[in-house]
């Protein structure tokens, strides 16, 4: 076992050097840098819509690029497509497996996807007279925790089998498998330029991947428990993560380290989901304690709360034009706030 021991030592030495290099770049902290910025006004948002229709816990939701349509997934075994402005259900997609964990809307608006304990990502075409299953992407050996469309021909997935994968929708096969996490992958977020993505996993690490060459480019440490939610900061230079350790963190890709931790002594529940306002200034983070807390991303302060759900907030989303925020909950309702 001599070789293994040596390699372990080498790896440890490199990690120590990385920490030292990060410290060297740490010539200030975000809070001091942002001290000159005017504080965000106390945010008090009202519920503008409550979407009722699901019969069981809502696990996921995703906005369409048109800022009005959205898809939501519930353990009642359905995907619902909503025109959230009118509150009408545009479509209902019955799922083969009711243990759904994620859903996604393609940027074109033509397709939606879902996945969960069935270990598969199923893609549906919304534009055919009757909604059809286009493909069942079946190769993961663990549950599907998150899926995102790059286009109508490519899908990215994150799985409980600790891998992420890029799929070609025509062949239904995995084009690239992203291997590096040692815990279940729980979430992923695409960079604005679509050349890379970040993933969060139960190994408490967030990783940046190059979509083309499949390599893990950066690893971010700091959380002490599962990372359940992750999102790119607009502009693509930073990421925000939410974890079961009850905190959210901002990491910058260029500084290669953590900038801020968003935490509060009174917050004693894990973060389930998060979404950013269009400028990135506000973070809407859903927690297990039924609330969605709003953070000033630059100053690290809590500036508001969205309370109204009667059970855990499981998903949050801000549409591309940033006009509102949607929260979905285990209480089976979706609420739109601004």
């Amino acid at each position, binding site marked *: 076992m001599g070789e293994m021991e040596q390699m372990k030592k080498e790896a440890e030495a*490199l990690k120590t050097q990385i920490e030292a290099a990060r410290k060297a770049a740490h010539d200030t902290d975000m809070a001091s840098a942002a001290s000159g910025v005017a504080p965000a006004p106390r945010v008090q948002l009202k519920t503008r819509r409550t979407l009722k229709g699901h019969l069981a816990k809502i696990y996921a939701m995703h906005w369409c690029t048109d800022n009005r349509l959205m898809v939501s997934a519930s353990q009642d075994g359905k995907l619902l497509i909503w025109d959230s402005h009118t509150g009408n259900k545009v479509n209902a997609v019955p799922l083969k497996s009711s243990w759904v964990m994620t859903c996604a809307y393609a940027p074109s608006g033509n397709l939606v996807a879902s996945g*969960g304990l069935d270990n598969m990502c199923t893609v549906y075409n919304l534009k055919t007279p009757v909604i059809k299953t286009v493909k069942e992407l079946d190769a993961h050996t663990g549950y599907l925790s998150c899926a995102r469309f790059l286009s109508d021909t490519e899908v990215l997935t994150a799985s409980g089998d600790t891998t992420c994968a890029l799929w070609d929708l025509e062949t239904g096969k995995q084009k690239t498998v992203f291997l590096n996490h040692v815990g279940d992958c729980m979430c992923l977020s695409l960079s604005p330029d679509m050349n890379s993505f970040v993933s969060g996993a139960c190994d408490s690490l967030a990783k940046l991947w190059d979509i083309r060459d499949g390599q893990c480019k950066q690893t971010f440490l700091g959380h002490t428990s599962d990372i359940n939610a992750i999102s790119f900061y607009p502009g693509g230079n930073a990421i925000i993560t939410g974890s079961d350790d009850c905190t959210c963190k901002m990491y910058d890709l260029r500084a290669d380290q953590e900038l801020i931790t968003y935490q509060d002594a009174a917050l004693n529940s894990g973060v389930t989901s998060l979404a950013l306002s269009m400028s990135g200034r506000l973070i809407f983070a859903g927690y297990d304690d039924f609330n969605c807390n709003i953070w000033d991303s630059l100053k690290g302060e809590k500036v508001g709360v969205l309370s109204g759900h009667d059970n855990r907030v499981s998903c949050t989303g801000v549409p591309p034009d940033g006009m509102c925020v949607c929260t979905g909950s285990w209480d089976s309702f979706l609420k739109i706030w601004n």
Partner: protein
Amino acid sequence: MAQPSSCAQSSNGVADESPNMLVYRKMEDIIARMQDEKNGIPIRTVKSFLSKIPSVFSGSDIVQWMQKNLNIEDQVEALHLGTLMAAHGYFFPISDHVLMLKDDGTFYRFQTPYFWPSNCWEPENTDYAVYLCKRTMQNKARLELADYEAESLARLQRAFARKWEFIFMQAEAQAKVDKKRDKIERKILDSQERAFWDVHRPVPGCVNTTEADIKKSSRMKQPHKTRKSVYGLQNDIRSHSPTHTPAPDAKEPVLLSSLQIQHWQTQLDRHRLKMSKVAESLLSFSEQYIEYDPFFTTPEPSNPWISDDVTSWELEASKEAGQQRVKRWGFCFDEVLKDPVGREQFLRFLESEFSSENLRFWLAVQELKKRPIREVPSRVQEIWDEFLAPGAPSAINVDSRSYDKTTQNIKDPGRYAFQDAQEHIYKLMKSDSYSRFIRSSAYQEMLQAKKKRNKNIPFFVIKNMK
């Protein structure tokens, strides 16, 4: 205080305990402070009617303590946190099944550590049956079953019809043990036991805080640490969970390590920007975009969610570019490329400079990436013929390295055949044409424009028509 299950670290550094443990520990820290003799909540015995109520404190006591000791100013926040802790069973109202915190004289009691959720309780229905059965053997009126409990008991009797004699015997035995206890002790233990069941079999309509996210529950990490039996019913202890997913096959250990080392080396070698620079960049980004963020700046004409007027969405989709939208193009080149109207205006500008082939090439390559695989080879050939082949009608100027690479790539055409050339052209447009576009009189005039323009005629063409 009972010791919660120990946190073992496995060899790859991942904590073995369930994610809930962190949350339980945080709550238990607060409980420990609440129970502190000097600075905690004062616990007292209250004399009522004909008896004493032992070991209680009021809801207001809790709220006040929280506000003083946990830095919580807002009463609503204190109630929220308190209700959360009550819902997990750390303290409970002595006369109510509904576990919530009220800021009044309602009496609460602490739960015994034995029943804390950090002990990984997953009590079985047989235990619940024993408990309800035992309750019916107690004669005191105050211990009568609530309606939902009576219903549950009836259901369980049907479900366990064959085992019922056994359950009955267990209930009798438990009742006997209980009778032997000191009266005051009994009051306390009875209430704690009831609170335990209120957590694991909540009143219909109340949230069950023991419900686990299916993503987490399919990762049963320590199945042998789970406690399933309150009353020691042996036959219900399982040795493993049926939902346990075996870990994926470990890769050949040495190979994995060398890949890891490569990864760490790459990460070490990457150039790191100083925090001050990074912070500055994030702050200026935020400053620039805050006027476009509907949460900070009221959008014009209105926010469709507030006014119910969808004009904002219609304008976005139209060819009209208002002043605010035009201003964004000046932030960075990517903003021009993102906006269809921006792209159109930039294209017309390039046409005037006879370099529109650059943008057209870039757009064609972007579109290629979304094409179905079967169309890719022919499309690659088309793009090559149009922009890069010797004598191409829209010849673009790429550096020799990218040109050679592309020549190689098209022999085996894929979606990324033109990646290097595209990057080169992107940089060219960004550093050269884009800055001239922003400085151009056409753009500047669009920026100053206050009047609405005729929708169908792009401004730039109007200028050229003079």
